[in-house]
């Protein structure tokens, strides 16, 4: 992490998860802002000088242009290989990793799955995914609060997913920042759980506006919490009227057939 501002640019580490225990750190060649400005105080007065003439240079450039360009590159990379890439986003603790563990186990005979794990720190999620036997790479964003297209591109080079497979990208648990960053995925899936407030879609509209699917998880806990499923879905559709939604329990298995059917429906048509 950059000591000046805590910026994430140089704090990103990508760790391939091998069967044997040799995590590799990769250094990235990002520029560092320097924090040693040297203001000089002068004891003598300066003559007053007129401001130099200036000119306006028009740029009209989207501030996310660089990310969007890299995202488009990732999208082409996936499409060229017939890979379905899904960006899973949620607040921390909604059960994304549990849903992935279960999904990988249930679909492993059907399609090859690999996972890009995004977290600020630790290899914990990647280790859980690795235990299912699937290929996984962990991206630690350091102080960063989201994955961006460049991080994903680096992760994909390490992950090397096979053609005609599915890549799940488990974004950093955060309902705010990941919404703004296109990674080049084909679909964006927002995972919520019934232990969160039903009003999350209204509180974090950017996330829900860009979603292609809402998965409401932890249905098994519904009897123990005050959560109105219909109200939550109504709020979500207030933000995105056509948003499809599934209610599931990743631990007990409720509703997972619907999730798997949705996934099958997203798979690219294979050449016969």
């Amino acid at each position, binding site marked *: 992490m950059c000591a000046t501002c805590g*910026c994430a640019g140089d704090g990103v580490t990508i760790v391939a998860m091998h069967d044997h225990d040799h995590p590799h750190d990769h250094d990235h060649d990002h520029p560092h*802002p320097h924090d040693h400005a040297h203001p000089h105080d002068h004891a003598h007065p300066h003559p007053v000088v007129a401001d130099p*003439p200036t000119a306006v240079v*028009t*740029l009209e450039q989207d501030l996310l242009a660089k990310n969007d360009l890299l995202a488009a590159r990732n999208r082409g990379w996936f499409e060229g290989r017939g890979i379905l890439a899904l960006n899973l986003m949620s607040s921390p603790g909604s059960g994304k990793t549990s849903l992935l563990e279960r999904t990988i186990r249930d679909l492993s005979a059907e399609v090859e799955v690999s996972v890009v794990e995004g977290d600020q720190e630790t290899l914990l999620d990647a280790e859980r995914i690795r235990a299912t036997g699937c290929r996984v790479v962990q991206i630690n964003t350091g102080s960063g609060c989201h994955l961006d297209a460049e991080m994903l591109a680096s992760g994909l080079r390490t992950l090397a997913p096979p053609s005609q497979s599915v890549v799940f990208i488990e974004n950093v648990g955060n309902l*705010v920042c990941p919404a703004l960053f296109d990674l080049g995925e084909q679909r964006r899936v927002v995972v919520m759980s019934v232990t969160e407030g039903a009003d999350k879609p209204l509180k974090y509209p*950017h996330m829900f*506006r860009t979603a292609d699917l809402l998965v409401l998880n932890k249905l098994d806990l519904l009897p123990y919490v005050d959560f109105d499923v219909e109200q939550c879905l109504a709020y979500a559709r207030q933000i995105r009227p056509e948003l499809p939604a599934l209610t599931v329990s990743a631990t007990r298995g409720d509703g997972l057939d619907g999730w798997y059917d949705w996934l099958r429906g997203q798979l690219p048509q294979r050449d016969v």
Partner: protein
Amino acid sequence: MHELSITESLVSAVLEQVDGEIKAVTVVIGRLSGVVPDSVRFCFDVCTRGTRLEGAVLEILEPAGRAICRSCDEVTDVADGIPLCSCGSVDLDVVGGRELSVKHVEVVV
């Protein structure tokens, strides 16, 4: 704090494309863009330190949110991230307020 990444993009985009001394930068951050102008101002000071942009004035234009109702075709103002038409519909096409761009810079000639 996605504003930090966005401000880094702003600074690198300007430095890559503009030579010489830069006096001011004008960016457009729509009110529905999901980006907080005050955070960008804070990050701009930090991200420009030690660069040619250090000390440059950051001007932020904040266009309001506008949407067209798909039910009644009315154009309506959108104050927050939850578009709602006076006819009661929530099915609106947002046509303004999501801008996020660097508009122009003022350079010494």
